[in-house]
């Protein structure tokens, strides 16, 4: 495989396409609402209409407006159909020939679409993620070719550093700095691969599905990012850690890896360079804590998935004691676009400290539920009110929760907060991996805090005492307060335990578990006090 061949594949692929494509979203959300049957009915309808050759049905990745699936997009320049039923297939096909069509259409110029700035999701929904040729046709693997032919590892790291990309898993650690640390960490002596690249696809925040969607819609984008990273840091082996609850993502990744190997885009001597990179999938077994990098490493090594104290950081001592680069799915998905368009292009998007875009899973009491990608710095108000369209019944939005069980609730009064790492932290939440849950006035914030604490309690691995037992006690206190059996002493104890877990837990799960409590206490203390005032056991 060389660049000429890559271009040839792309051209062949483009030439083989029918003039009209019916893009049928086959991501998990639309499949759950019947996309698979719809797709076969569209195929049948096309054949029956005698349009074979002039139009084709293409299974594609996420089309963004997940709450209104199944989604079908007619390309080029056709409508976007929403909430499509299998019975609608003949009407959609007839519409290709100019017949009037009653199937619900969505305005692509609506703010939900128009205000997005897709970088990671740019090609999502425009090609079949199960065919590498389609990915190559949209420019896939060109960044890897560029890197291997034109750039030294140091130059790659320099570009990533210059782009200002920060970790999309939530903490926002500068990606270039992490890569540089792994690159300069000495690999211990021994046989086999002695440096590793790991993609963290153990997404688990309630309401979050950014990584799942990226993996389902564009698996090669992540693989390409991993390969570039491996070249930059000097690794020859990669692991993609995906949670077991994402079978479609695992299936597509498995296919993607085997296709890439066939084309020589993974494996030995990629692009006929001296660079070797192999990727294996590791499937998680349902523990949220395995999203924590040291627990993830333990899990890949075949040990019990629980964290260990850092330092040493995985960049110095990770998988089997070797320097290991761990980045999140979305972080890797940003790599190829940065290489392709240049770090300056990327750095021009976003704010001074948070560059680029962020993918959010917009869910909850919001009209437009779905996957969005917006430039960093857009305000919560713009996201919730304009893209999200507010609440379905038009009542005022009360708060948004970002960052999942590690994050916090931000009240409507603070909706001018721009989404960047620092501003969200200053508002008492975190960027997190991208879950964004919208709440209206019917949401009880004590109940929300209780819910997230229950999640943390259930997901605590049990290794360190504050998290293991503290989450149980905090959940009991919150349940008591929410159910009208709380006292002022309970509230004081809740705050004491919050402090304890923050300061003494071993890993991020326990340290951040009090965040939903602390942020709701900060902004919605009146709701706690109302529960206490109505309490049957005021203490």
């Amino acid at each position, binding site marked *: 495989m060389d660049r000429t061949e890559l271009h040839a594949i792309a051209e062949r692929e483009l030439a083989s396409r029918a003039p009209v494509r019916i893009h049928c979203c086959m991501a998990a959300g639309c499949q759950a609402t019947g996309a698979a049957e719809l797709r076969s009915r569209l195929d049948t309808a096309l054949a029956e209409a005698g349009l074979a050759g002039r139009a084709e049905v293409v299974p594609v990745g996420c089309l963004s407006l997940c709450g209104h699936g199944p989604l079908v997009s007619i390309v080029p320049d056709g409508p976007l159909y929403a909430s499509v039923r299998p019975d609608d297939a003949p009407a959609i096909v007839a519409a290709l020939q100019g017949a009037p069509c009653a199937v619900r259409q969505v305005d692509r110029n609506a703010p939900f679409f128009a205000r997005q700035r897709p970088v990671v999701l740019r090609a999502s929904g425009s090609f079949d993620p199960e065919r590498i040729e389609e990915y190559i046709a949209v420019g896939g693997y060109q960044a890897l070719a560029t890197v291997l032919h034109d750039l030294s590892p140091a130059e790659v790291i320099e570009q990533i550093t210059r782009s200002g990309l920060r970790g999309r898993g939530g903490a926002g650690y500068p990606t270039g700095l992490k890569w540089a640390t792994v690159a300069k960490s000495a690999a211990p002596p021994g046989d086999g691969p002695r440096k590793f690249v790991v993609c963290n696809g153990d997404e688990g925040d309630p309401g979050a599905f950014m990584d799942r969607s990226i993996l389902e819609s564009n698996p090669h984008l992540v693989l390409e990012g991993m390969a570039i990273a491996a070249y930059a840091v000097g690794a020859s082996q990669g692991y993609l850690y995906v949670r077991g609850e994402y079978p479609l993502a695992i299936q597509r990744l498995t296919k993607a890896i085997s296709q890439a190997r066939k084309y020589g885009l993974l494996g030995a001597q990629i692009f006929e360079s001296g660079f070797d990179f192999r990727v294996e999938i590791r499937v998680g077994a349902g*523990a949220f*804590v395995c999203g924590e990098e040291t627990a993830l490493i333990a899990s890949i090594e075949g040990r*019990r998935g629980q964290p*260990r*104290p850092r330092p040493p950081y995985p960049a110095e001592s990770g998988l089997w004691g070797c320097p290991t680069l761990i980045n999140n799915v979305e972080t890797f998905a940003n790599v190829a676009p940065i290489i392709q368009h240049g770090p300056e292009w990327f750095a021009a998007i976003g704010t001074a400290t948070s560059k680029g875009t962020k993918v959010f899973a917009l869910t909850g009491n919001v009209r437009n539920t779905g996957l969005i990608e917006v430039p960093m710095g857009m305000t919560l108000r713009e996201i919730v009110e304009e893209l999200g369209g507010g609440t379905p019944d038009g009542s005022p939005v009360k708060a948004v929760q970002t960052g999942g069980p590690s994050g916090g609730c931000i009240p409507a009064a603070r909706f001018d907060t721009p989404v960047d790492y620092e501003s969200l932290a200053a508002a008492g939440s975190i960027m997190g991996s991208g879950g964004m849950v919208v709440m209206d006035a019917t949401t009880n914030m004590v109940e929300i805090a209780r819910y997230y604490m229950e999640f943390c*309690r*259930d*997901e*605590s*691995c*049990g*290794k*360190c*005492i*504050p998290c*293991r*037992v*503290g*989450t*149980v*006690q905090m959940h*009991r206190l919150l349940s008591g307060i929410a159910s009208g059996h709380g006292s002022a002493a309970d509230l004081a*104890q809740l705050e*004491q*335990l919050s402090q*304890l877990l923050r*300061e*003494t*837990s*071993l890993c991020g799960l326990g340290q951040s578990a009090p965040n939903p409590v602390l942020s709701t206490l900060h902004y919605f203390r009146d709701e706690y006090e109302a529960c206490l005032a109505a309490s049957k056991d005021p203490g």
Partner: protein
Amino acid sequence: MAAKTLTIDGTLVSAREGESILEAAREAGITIPTLCHLDGLSEVGACRLCLVELTGSRRLQPACLTPVAEGMEVRTSTERLREHRRAIVELLFAERGHVCAVCVASGACELQDLAARLGVTHVRYDYLAPACTVDISHPRFGIDHHRCVLCTRCVRACDEVEGVHTWDVAGRGTAARVITDLHVPWGQATSCTSCGKCLHACPTGAIFQRGSSVAELKRDPGVIALVVAARKERW
């Protein structure tokens, strides 16, 4: 080996490079509370009792896992740390069924000692009172999970010193339990050599010799370090 000079609770202390704060403090006569630490075993930093404050570090650091550094300023017993330690010990007492009055280990129990030393007069949290199992399928030893604090000292002693790995942990959160082999009764765990190292390593009365009654437990946690040191000298 290079010496490092640091201050622990205002006292200038000289320590060997690579030594942990815990070791350096102990050599200087400063006791930092521990529970999951046992001389001779690897450190896991799980109990969080040895957390200390370091000047210049926002985060509390486990003394067992933090190596000494030149010029380091360590505080081991601030009011904040004492309060956190009391809370952690109280959480343990609340978690399972630690009834000192009827325990074989009373008088020789690290949890009981910690409570007294840290000023735990009572437990502020709700007692969870779970129904745990007692496994006396082994002819010589037994384990009462009511008294287990999940320090994993048995797991490490068995794995690292005896080299057998009969013990491990299953389940998660407060449902986590130490188990033998693939979660079979101890008496059926064929890998167990009945060496008794887990008994010596256990800080509470969870692992006991069958037939011993209240406050009768005899054990020597130092035996683990002794074996480890003796092997180092020989091999």
